[in-house]
């Protein structure tokens, strides 16, 4: 299941819903991505003077997340999965993204969860605008994210 929303979410409730009424799941791996302090090392800008705005491409975002999730199900024996990604204005400490994968065994759950995060970083149309002390700056894509996504196509 995928959800793209401005609202916050509750990790415990989401994973509980994934598991509800089932006794065939042995493992649930999950990942929570959070807004970190954005001020440069040593800067005096307090967390309360920082914000991150997540812009996305409505329609394409849902399509890409559903594609990514389907790819994970083709590749690993997943019993259930969930991707929630927020958009809008967030503050340091806020939740951005949740990925959870359920499988009979732990390795598939872990690998699928990492795969989903790696692919989501490079395929889902989201962009981050960081505001620190009133200055807004678009976050550059990281080469390490491209490399992390590429590792799933070379084995």
């Amino acid at each position: 299941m995928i959800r793209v929303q401005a609202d916050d979410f509750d990790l415990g409730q989401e994973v509980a819903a994934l598991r509800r009424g089932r006794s065939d799941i042995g493992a649930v791996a999950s990942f929570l991505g959070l807004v970190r302090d954005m001020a440069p090392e040593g800067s005096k800008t307090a967390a309360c003077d920082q914000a991150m705005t997540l812009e996305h491409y409505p329609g394409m975002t849902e399509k890409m997340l559903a594609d990514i999730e389907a790819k994970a199900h083709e590749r690993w024996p997943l019993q259930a999965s969930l991707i929630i990604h927020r958009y809008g204005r967030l503050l340091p400490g806020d939740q951005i993204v949740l990925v959870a994968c359920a499988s009979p065994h732990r390795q598939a759950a872990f690998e699928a969860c990492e795969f989903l995060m790696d692919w989501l970083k490079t395929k889902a149309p989201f962009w981050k605008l960081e505001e620190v002390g009133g200055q807004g700056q678009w976050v550059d894509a990281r080469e390490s994210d491209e490399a992390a996504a590429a590792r799933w196509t070379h084995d």
Partner: protein
Amino acid sequence: MINVLYFAWVRSGIGLDQETIETQATTVGALLDELRARSPRHGETLADIAKLRLAVNQSFVDLDAKIAAGDEVAVFPPMTGG
């Protein structure tokens, strides 16, 4: 008529989130050339193709992808979600 969407710094650079273009262009590359000529802001923002990503009807494409009337074309920077 092609509907063109801009996101992130492409949107703020051009100063529009979308515009509808009358064009004879049949590829995304040709459309981009036309877009660059629309204003200095368009020209500057769309100058470096290496910094841009393209989608037609919500799928990633290259410059040589075909376009036709009614398509939705999007121009945006590399993604930074997650």
